[in-house]
């Protein structure tokens, strides 16, 4: 009787409405999840050629494409996925079934050649941030003052670079600090490869010079196509690998297609050079030198038959080193991939410096999540215990616990809705909100049950809300400056706290006041 009366009130109904909405948005998969989610597809890989696409970063986690089976064998974990792949025989037909469609392709030589990055399927729409999932966080600072347009271009070029490199699960955004300095924050989930850093910090000014004259620059104006398939890129067969001092060095090559203007420029530059014969070979007296960010990467002789010709296809080359031959090959191919990436995406408007670089181990991230869940539950139980000792009434304790839990659910629902990543800062924010939540519920309880008998309930609740709003505004005062301080690194924390406090103060805590009023009246 009193319970139904307690629930039948607009404040409580509104709270329940928000809760239901949050749970719908979060969409927790209680039965666990099937398959592995596709994180990114490497360009020119077997998977990309069979039609698989990079997931859009704006997709809700549960709407992302999930691999369900390979050749009819069900995939439930990342381990299953790799086991199935390792059992493939080269050129065997592979049927890969996802939530979208079935892809068929021939098995390539190595698992890496398939080119799919996966991670375990999400169990809800809450995006786990780097601290919980592992990955790289890079903070870049422009070397000199930069206009808002240039900053925008830089952010977009960096995004494109990472996409071209084969990473799509990324966040690239600009940030400002209190003194007006610009920063770029990049988060790449699930990747711990350091070489990505080079890709970001590099301005990527690619130039080809003949006799100190630039004939070619990176970017789409001069270079219309960069070959990345095996037929026209890879370890250079004519130069190969060789032993040097205490290691090995290898050369790579890939061909690029020039725009007519760039080809004409190249022709003009070679027209007046002098051919030099060396036995049967004939080369021009000047080399073509390749520069990346003003340092020379390679220097090639130009054969005489190219003189004055507007060749639209030319070969770019370079080299890499390693302690063993295998390592040298791997590094060389990586160098090639980086060079291809910067040639495709062109130069950034400004040089960037890496000023903060965090690498978070995926295994530590997972462990941290479990630990936080455990600590959170333990903390809630201890708080309930304290409150129980003080009030000893289930009519107070149960609504209190229900209110606290619903505040947490609302924050998570909001985070899922707007696409926030829940990371360490977010977890800290949740702790603060829970802390003030308990405090406020205690104030409401004491104001209402301990108030003088001659004042009515309405006035007592009003008194309680007066205190609560006072605390709310002072808390906001503390959090607001954090939105801008220090390159926005504490923004996530401030936002979670502000959002949580607001939901608590406007929705959950008034509903609690009504509930205990009706239950105790």
């Amino acid at each position, binding site marked *: 009787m009193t319970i139904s009366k307690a629930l039948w009130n607009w404040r409580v109904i509104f709270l329940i409405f928000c809760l239901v909405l949050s749970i719908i948005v979060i969409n927790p998969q209680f039965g666990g999840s099937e398959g592995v989610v596709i994180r990114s597809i490497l360009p020119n890989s077997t998977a990309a050629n069979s039609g698989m696409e990079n997931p859009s970063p704006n997709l809700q986690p549960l709407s992302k494409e999930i691999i369900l089976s390979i050749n009819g064998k069900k995939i439930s974990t990342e381990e299953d996925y790799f086991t199935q792949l390792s059992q493939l025989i080269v050129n065997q037909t592979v049927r890969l079934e996802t939530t979208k469609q079935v892809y068929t392709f021939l098995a390539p030589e190595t698992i890496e050649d398939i080119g799919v990055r996966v991670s375990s399927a999400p169990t809800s729409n809450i995006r786990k941030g780097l601290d919980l999932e592992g990955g790289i966080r890079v*903070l870049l600072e422009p070397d000199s003052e930069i206009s808002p347009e240039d900053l925008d271009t830089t952010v977009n070029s960096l995004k494109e670079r990472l996409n071209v490199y084969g990473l799509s699960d990324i966040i690239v955004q600009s940030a400002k600090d209190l*003194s007006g*300095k610009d920063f770029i924050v990049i988060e790449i989930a699930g990747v*711990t490869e*350091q070489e990505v*850093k080079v890709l970001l910090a590099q301005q990527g000014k690619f130039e080809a010079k003949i006799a100190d004259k630039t004939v070619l620059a990176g970017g789409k104006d001069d270079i219309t196509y960069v070959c990345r398939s095996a037929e026209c890129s890879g370890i250079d067969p004519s130069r190969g690998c060789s032993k040097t001092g205490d290691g090995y060095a290898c050369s790579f090559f890939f061909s690029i297609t020039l725009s007519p203007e760039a080809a004409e420029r190249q022709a003009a530059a070679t027209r007046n050079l002098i051919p030099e014969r060396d036995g049967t070979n004939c080369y021009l007296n000047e080399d073509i030198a390749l520069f990346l960010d003003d340092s020379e990467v390679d220097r090639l002789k130009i054969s005489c038959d190219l003189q004055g010709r507007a060749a639209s296809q030319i070969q770019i080359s370079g080299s890499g080193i390693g302690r063993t031959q295998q390592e040298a090959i791997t590094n060389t191919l990586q160098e090639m991939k980086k060079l291809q990436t910067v040639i495709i995406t062109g130069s950034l408007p400004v040089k960037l410096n890496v*000023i*903060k*670089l*965090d*690498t978070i*181990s*995926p*295994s*530590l991230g997972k*462990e*941290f999540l479990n*630990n*936080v869940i455990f*600590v959170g539950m333990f*903390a809630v139980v*201890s*708080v309930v215990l*304290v*409150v129980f000792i*003080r009030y000893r009434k289930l009519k107070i304790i149960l609504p209190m616990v229900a209110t606290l839990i619903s505040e947490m659910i609302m924050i998570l629902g909001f985070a899922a809705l707007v696409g926030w990543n829940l990371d360490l*800062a977010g*977890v800290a924010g949740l*702790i*603060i909100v829970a*802390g003030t939540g*308990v*405090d406020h519920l*205690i*104030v409401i309880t*004491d*104001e209402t049950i*301990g108030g*003088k008998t001659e004042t009515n309930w309405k006035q007592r609740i009003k*008194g309680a809300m*007066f*205190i609560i709003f*006072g*605390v709310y*505004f*002072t*808390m906001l*005062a*503390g*959090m*607001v*400056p*954090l939105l*801008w*301080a*220090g*390159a926005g*690194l*504490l923004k996530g924390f401030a936002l979670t*706290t502000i959002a949580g406090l607001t939901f608590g103060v406007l929705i959950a805590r008034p509903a609690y006041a009504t509930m205990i009023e009706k239950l105790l009246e």
Partner: protein
Amino acid sequence: MNWMQKFYENKYKLLLIFPFLILLAAFIQIGLQYSTTGDFVNKGISLKGGSTITFPYSDSYNLIQIEEKMSATFQDEEITIRTIHSAGKIIAVAIDTNLEEEQKIANVRDFLETETGLSATDFNIEVVGSSLGESFFRQTATALLIGFLLMGLVVFIYFKTLVPSLAVVLAAFSDIVVTLAIFNLTGEKLSTAGVAAFLMLIGYSVDTDILLSTRVLKRLELPIMERIYSSIKTGLTMTITTTVAVLVAFLFVHSEVVKQISLIIIIGLLVDTIMTWIQNVGILRIYLERKEHKK
């Protein structure tokens, strides 16, 4: 009525000396810290630049041996090794260095890989440029100041009387200063998250003060001591629940960041009980007495 209660009720002016003595001691500590180290707080890597490499601990590691070998291998660098505890057990090892260049950090990681047998993906590596660390510290300190001023403004608009508002602001200020001094004494190094914790402390410290001021200034139908005692009852329940929750986090959480936030809040909450129930109560009572006198 026992003697403690009697003392609390009657000697509130004498008692008021106590929070101010603590505040003075805190200022002395911070001053000494400044004169010996050049900074009023012990800054960690995230505030001064450098790198931290963290990896999970296993009983098979001989940390003393690793440390000796490490300092021999990297003689020219500042490298310190420390352990992260949770529930009384070592759960991770953190290596702080002054290194900012990628290659040098990679050398240390490679060294640790060979020593521990872990693979590269088991390491957390945090690198902060020294310029960023410094600007971060300045900025968060500015944020703390702005937050504090905004808080003062809110409190003043809320109560519209000067002395009680100032008492709230003074309580929050004392809380932050004394907490900082105690934090220094623990020998911990402040990280960016720690600075955020001080900002949170504003909120946690002010809530009991607002509760007290509201009850004392607005519930005029009750005698003064009854108003104060009712506030103490509510306020202490609030402080105890928060302390218990944060203590659980401090003892059991594996993340250093959350651990430091928890530590600062625990210290702050304990200091706040003195600042609210002795300092703020004392000032409010003197204020009310003078007001009564004028009538």
